[in-house]
């Protein structure tokens, strides 16, 4: 009986279907930083979307909070190999922010207070895949985690979810951002382990 049950229970465990290759699960929320944490007063905060061809779309903090809000619960995958499951956010879908923006652009460059940038195909920001969030776990988003507001693009490695977001520039050509020009992958799909340039 012992042998049989050991054989029965001893099959290799199914890999966790929610954990991308090479990742491990954490329960805290590590903070990685590439510079000083910007402190952005809300009365001077502004988010904008600009294009090569049309007018700049701008939102003040009050205007941003007045937009329809969503509360996505998503898994996060950091390129430094930690993943965190079931994180709860509140913010505005990029589909809402892009509603009145007309552009033929295929690429986006997110830029932040403090100077950080990251690039991604525009389609990765649309169709319910990305948000600008201002609450985490029911609380206002703390500056170390990107507050007052950060980009959230959970299907890509977390460096694409720019903290302290200030705006998005729509571009006809891809324009690699901060980490993408420093050795990291241009796209960053955790399920294909696109960590470094050339992966």
């Amino acid at each position, binding site marked *: 009986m012992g042998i049989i049950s050991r054989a029965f229970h001893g099959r290799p465990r199914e890999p966790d279907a929610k954990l991308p290759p090479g990742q491990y699960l954490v329960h805290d929320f590590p903070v*990685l*930083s*590439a*510079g*000083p944490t910007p402190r952005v007063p809300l009365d001077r905060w502004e988010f904008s979307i600009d294009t090569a061809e049309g007018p700049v779309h701008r939102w003040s903090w009050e205007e941003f909070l007045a937009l329809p809000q969503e509360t996505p619960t998503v898994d996060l995958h*950091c*390129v*430094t190999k930690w993943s965190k499951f079931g994180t709860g956010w509140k913010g505005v879908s990029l589909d809402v922010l892009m509603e009145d923006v007309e552009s033929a652009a295929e690429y986006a460059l997110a830029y932040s207070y403090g*100077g950080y940038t990251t690039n991604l195909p525009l389609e990765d920001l649309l169709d319910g895949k990305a948000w600008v969030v201002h609450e985490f776990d029911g609380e206002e988003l703390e500056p170390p985690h990107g507050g007052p507001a950060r980009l959230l693009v959970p299907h890509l490695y977390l*460096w694409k979810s720019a903290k302290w977001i200030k705006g998005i520039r729509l571009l006809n050509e891809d324009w690699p951002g*901060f*980490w993408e*020009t*420093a*050795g*990291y992958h241009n796209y960053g799909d955790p399920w294909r382990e696109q*960590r*470094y*340039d*050339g992966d």
Partner: protein
Amino acid sequence: MDYQDGNALAGPLSEIFSLDVTVAQGKCAACGLRGPLAQLHVYGPDPGLVARCPSCEEVVLTLVRGPNDAWLDLRGSVSLRIPIAE
């Protein structure tokens, strides 16, 4: 041909990269401040080392270390002045 291929860099660069580069004098591309690399403000190490100018906080250099490669990006330095003992 009026140039050599990059193999001509091997000797001169190996001399420099074997030194303690923290004593090298860097010049910030953003504000022009000169100073030893040891005075830069360094963030990281993950996802990469980011060294910033102590005066203007602009990025002077980044160093990303992967399992098989390292990427050194001197994007924000005009030059490095490296003392070489005779």
